[in-house]
Each structure stands twice: as structure tokens, then as C-alpha cells.
């Protein structure tokens, strides 16, 4: 089935991107891995007919957040501090055990659950927009306020102090 093939490819892309994102010693490559993972995620959304979300995901994450991260990397890059020492060796065992353990527990939870009928919800941009602007209007506005606050706050924090 083409959909299954697409799912497998996207899954590999997502997980592989995630592995690159946390594994790459070079931060630029890590960002690329993140982008790969996010695009794979968008594909997984698309497979579930969440068109709008897929597109928004790419627009916001790949077009926005990833670029911001790259900018931050450029601005914080320093000579003589090799990015290669990317992981803290003393944290690695604990982090590995915790990450693997958490994944194992959650997968085990999923395994025990009974598989349910999984219809593909028919959510179009129109229905999503109607939900956002009717039922979820107040949270929607609150989120816009939050964005504004975050924007102003980030500007204030990051601004160079004038000497």
C-alpha cells in the first residue's frame, strides 16, 4: 500500500532526524536533523489528513524556529570552544537509561491498550478555523497575547544593554 510505504519512510525520516538532532556534534547539523524530523512529522500529519497542521508545522518550525535557532548558534559560536564535545559524558548513562526507560514504559502502555478503530478524521482548514474562532476564541486570543508578550520579552532580554 502506498500509504504504508509513505508511513514507513516518514517514520524513518522522523526518527532519524530526531537522532541526528540529539546526536550530531555540530550544532548546524543538529538543526538540520531537527528540520528533517519536523518535516517528517508534517508528513505524518498529512497522512492523517491534518493538512493545515502539516503546513503550519513547516511554516512555523522550519521557516521560523529552525532559522532562529541557527541565528542563535551563529551568535553564540565561539572560537576555542569545540562543539564536538556535545554531550556531557557524566550525564549520558542516566540520560540514556531515562530516555530508553521512558520510551519503553510508554510503548508498553501503548502495547497493552486495545487497538481501536482508527478512522481518519475529516478536519479541513474550514472546520479548524470555525472551531478556533467560535468555541476556542478566548484561548486563541489568549495565545496571541502570549505571543506578543513573548516577543516583547524576548526583545528585552536579548537586547544589548546600551553602555
Amino acid at each position, binding site marked *: 500500500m502506498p500509504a504504508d510505504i509513505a508511513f514507513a519512510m516518514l517514520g524513518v525520516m522522523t526518527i532519524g532526524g530526531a537522532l541526528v538532532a540529539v546526536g550530531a556534534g555540530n550544532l548546524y547539523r543538529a538543526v538540520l536533523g531537527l528540520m528533517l524530523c519536523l518535516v517528517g512529522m508534517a508528513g505524518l500529519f498529512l497522512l492523517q489528513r491534518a493538512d493545515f497542521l502539516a503546513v503550519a508545522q513547516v511554516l512555523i518550525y522550519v521557516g521560523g524556529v529552525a532559522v532562529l535557532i541557527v541565528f542563535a548558534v551563529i551568535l553564540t559560536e565561539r572560537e576555542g570552544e569545540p562543539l564536538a564535545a556535545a554531550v556531557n559524558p557524566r550525564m549520558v548513562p542516566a*540520560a540514556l537509561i531515562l530516555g530508553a526507560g521512558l520510551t519503553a514504559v510508554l510503548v508498553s502502555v501503548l502495547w497493552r491498550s486495545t487497538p481501536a478503530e482508527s478512522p481518519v478524521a475529516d478536519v479541513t482548514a474550514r472546520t479548524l478555523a470555525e472551531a478556533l474562532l467560535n468555541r476556542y476564541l478566548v484561548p486563541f486570543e489568549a495565545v496571541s497575547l502570549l505571543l506578543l508578550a513573548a516577543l516583547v520579552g524576548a526583545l528585552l532580554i536579548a537586547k544589548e544593554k546600551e553602555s
Partner: protein
Amino acid sequence: MFPGILALVPALPFLAFVVIGLVTRPWRWLSAGVAIAAISVAFLLSLGALSFLLTAGAETPRVVELTWLTTSTLNAHIGLRLDALSGIMLVVVTTVALMVQIYSLGYMSEEPSLSRYYAYLSLFCASMLGLVLATNFLQLYVCWELVGVCSYLLIGFWYDRHAPAFAAKKAFVTTRFGDLGFLIGLIMICTAAGSFDFVEIQAKVAAGTWTAGWLGTVAVLLFCGAAGKSAQVPLHVWLPDAMEGPTPVSALIHAATMVAAGVYMVARLFFLFSASPDAMQVVAVIGGVTAIFAALIALVQDDIKRVLAYSTISQLGYMMLALGVGGMAAGMFHLFTHAFFKALLFLGAGSVIHATHTNNMWEMGGLRKKMPWTFWTFVAGSLALAGVAPFAGFFSKDAILHLVMGKNLFLFALAVLGSLCTAFYMTRVICVTFLGEARAASGHAHESPWVMRVPLVILAVLSVVAGFWHAGFERLVQGGEAEAEGLNLGFAAVTQMVPLAGILAGVMLYVLKSPDPDALAVRFAPLYTLLKRRFYVDELYDWIIDRIVLRCSAGLAWFDRHVVDGAVNGVAWLTQQTGTQLRYVQTGRVQHYALAVFGGAAILLAIAHVAGAF
């Protein structure tokens, strides 16, 4: 209309207190005006209440109440109770307070913090009036303590001087001893009755709910409070020292507010006391002893205000004596008349002090010419105090003596002796202060301004005429059930000899100098010293405190410092050590914290999963 509108009587002075404290403090004469206006309205209302009682009868108390707070076991109310006792007391308190406040305009005219003075006075009146109108123990107690606080504030009004501050503290602490007993008694009776209300408790007492012995215990405990407030032996020591306060305040304390509270409380709870003959006996004996004890001390004091202070203690003893032998009406009548002439005497003494700037009688003398108004009003007050007919004191004291004679001859003897002393020392005061040669301080003395004279005159008139109301008073208080006893002319004629003898003795000693008082003092030196040192009561207390209380305290302090503090410090040390060790867990690295958070979440999740939650 009555008694609801009477809420204004305590409320107005209280409001004056608030207004003065918050608004008019910078303008001292305005503050005085506010206070006087408030008390004037309260005075008029009180007069209205009394006349209402006289026309409508006072057999049953009129009560309005609001629920203050409700618990599962107790309901506390706040209310107003208008009956003969409270009606009369309202008039007494507001009259004296009004006179004192007007008088203070002159006496305190140079005081910079006049606003504070009038604020305290207003609060003092408000709390006393609230006490008078109380319907239940709780309200009574609250007002009772407020009265104590106000007296503390006013005695220590000149708090920047050592003596007033010390006297204020002494007054507060001493009355506190009595209040402890009062509080215990109050808790006992109220928990036993399940109510604070006088009416309910009275009903239960009348129904014979409790044994006489238990009631006696309660009554004696309650009487402790009264003894403290009304300066009965052995808790009288604060009152003479309280003379350090401004003289008008002394007048107020002695005549209407502070000391009257004790007597009033006993009268108000008379139903309780009269249920226990033993308690009545205690009251009577304490009263009688106080009466003669204080009168004896008063004989030899040099300070004009101290003489008056001891005379107050003595007169309060008479009131208690009357109450103790069952003469509620007689006791209250004495309170009534005493309020007027004692206020008069204090204001007169204040006038003298104002003119001479000294308290010592031996520095005055010959003031009769220079201060005629003060002299004549003072004489009127003294005659009333001595119990010379037909002044007010005669009627009230005579009633008490008559009553006591019928009950207990020993106490009667004490009372008669006290009466003799009273006449003597008042004669002494007048002779030394106003007659004879002018001495050091009276050279530049002059009559006081009219704002001080007017209250003197009004009170003098009241001191003369108040006694004639004794029959009506008795009817009002007794509620018409017992026919007024009336004046026993024969008995009065006999007892009248006593004050006259006292006056005669005084005149002989201090005008004619035969025998010479100084020679007498030398001759009876031990007795004189004993009296001069006020029976060594203060010294005894000092000794007790130094030797017993402070030593026990030292032991307890050691315990507190080493055992209690040690335990507390030990706990603190333990906490600190634990924290010192634990803070190494706080590495300051955000990823370690995140590890802890995620780890905790993972473990919880795993436990829930294994337990089968999902």
C-alpha cells in the same frame, strides 16, 4: 425609642475618639470641642433615659440585643440594657465626664497634645458607658478591659516623665491581678450556664441550678476583679500612685469611671452575690477593712491628692460594705453621691494645684482669700464627704451605717471610726490648704478661670442637693417592691455626732494647735510612721516580688534559657544541618534538575503501569 437610641451614648464618645484620632488631631481646640459635643449629647440622652425610667418605671430591664457571633456552644450578643442601675450610672458617668471635660479646657490649656488627651477621655467614657449598658458578661468584660487600658493611657498621659509612666504600669499590673480572678470566675459561670447573658444566668441562679458553695467561689473570684478595679485592700496600691495623671483624669477615675466599674459590677451581679452568704461576708469584710484602713492612712498624707485618693479608697470600702451587707440601693446611692462630691473635691484640688503648681499641702495655706470660689466649693464637697447634714454624703453614709448596724456590730464600729477619720482628715486638708498663713507656693496664687469654676459650682450644687433624692432613688433601684426605709431621725442625730467630732478635732489640731500635731506625731511615732508608710503594703509587695517572685522567675528563666531555648535551638540546628547537607543535592545545573523531574515522572508512570492503572 428606648433603649435602642441609647446605643448613641457610648457610640458618640467613641466616634469622637475616632474622629479626633484620625481627623482633628492637629487642631487641639477643635478636638476638645468634638469630645465635649459628643459627651454633651450623651449626657442629654442619659438624662432622657433616666426621666423615662422615672415616668415609665424600672421594674423590668429593657434589653435590645444584636447577635455578635455564634458558635456551636455559645451565642455572644452585644446589646443595651436599660434599668435603674444602668440609668443612674449613665447620668453619673456622663455628668462627671462632661464636667471634667469642660474643666479640662482650663486645666490643660497649655498642654500641646490636648487632642490625644481628649481622645483618651472620649474612649474612656465610651468604654465605661458600654460597660454600664452591657447585657452580658462578654460585653462587660470587653468594656472592663477597655476601661483598664484607658486608665493606663491617661495615668501615663505624661509618659515622658518617669513617675506617671511607672504609675500607669503599676495601675495596669495591679488591676490585672484582680482581673485574673474575674476572668476565671467569668469563664466558670459562663461555661456552666452555657450563656453570657445576665438575664439567663440570673434565671438559672434563681432556679437554684448551682449550690451556694460553688456560686460563692464564682462570686469571690468575680469580686477579685471588682477589688482590683475599685482599689480594695489589698489591691488598693495603684490608686494613690495614679495621682500622677492629670488631675481632671483623677477626678474622672475616682468619681465615675474606673473605680466605679468595680462597685457597679458587684451591683449588677448582685443576684449572684446575694445567692451566697459567704461571698457577701467576704465583700462586706473587705469593704469594711478598706474603709478604715484607707481612712487611717489618709490622716497623715501631705499630698492633697493622695489624701483624696485614700479617701476614695475608703469611700469605696463603704460602698462595698453596703453591698456586702445586702444594701444594694445604699451602696449605689453612695456611689451616686460620692461621684459628685469626689469629682468636686478633685477638681477643687486641681484648681488649687493649678494655682500653686505643687501638690504638697504644707506649701500652700491661706488660699481662702485668693481663691474664694474654689474654697467654698471645696468646703461644700468636704462636708458632703464627711457626712454632715444636709449634704449629700450624709444621706448615703447614714443609710449605710444604719444598714450595717443591723447586721454586724464589728463592721459598724469600723465604719463609724472610718467616718470619724474622714471628717478629721478633710478638716485637716481645708485648714492646712485654705486657712492660716500663706506659705511658699501660695504667694502668687490666683483664682482659676471660669471654665474651671463653672463645673465646680455645678458639682457643688449637686453635692448639696443630691442627697435629698434618697427616697426616690431607693424606690427606683428597689423597683418599688420594698418600701423605702426613710430617714431614721434618731439614729441620724446620733451618728451626726461622729463627723462633727472629727471636724472639731481637726480644728483643734490644725487651727488652734492644741495639742500641736507635730508633738503628737513624735509622741506616737511608731503609729505615725506606720500610717505615713501606708502600713508598709508597698514595701511588703516589693519584698514579695524581690524575694519570691523574682527568684522563682530566675529559676524559670534559667529553665527557659537552657531547656526551652535549647530545644528550639536544637531543632533549628538540626534543620540547618540537614539543609547544609541537602544543599549539595542542589548542584545548580539545570539538567540535573531536569533529570530529577523526568526521572520522577518516569518512575511514577512505571509504578502506575505495573500496578495496572493503564
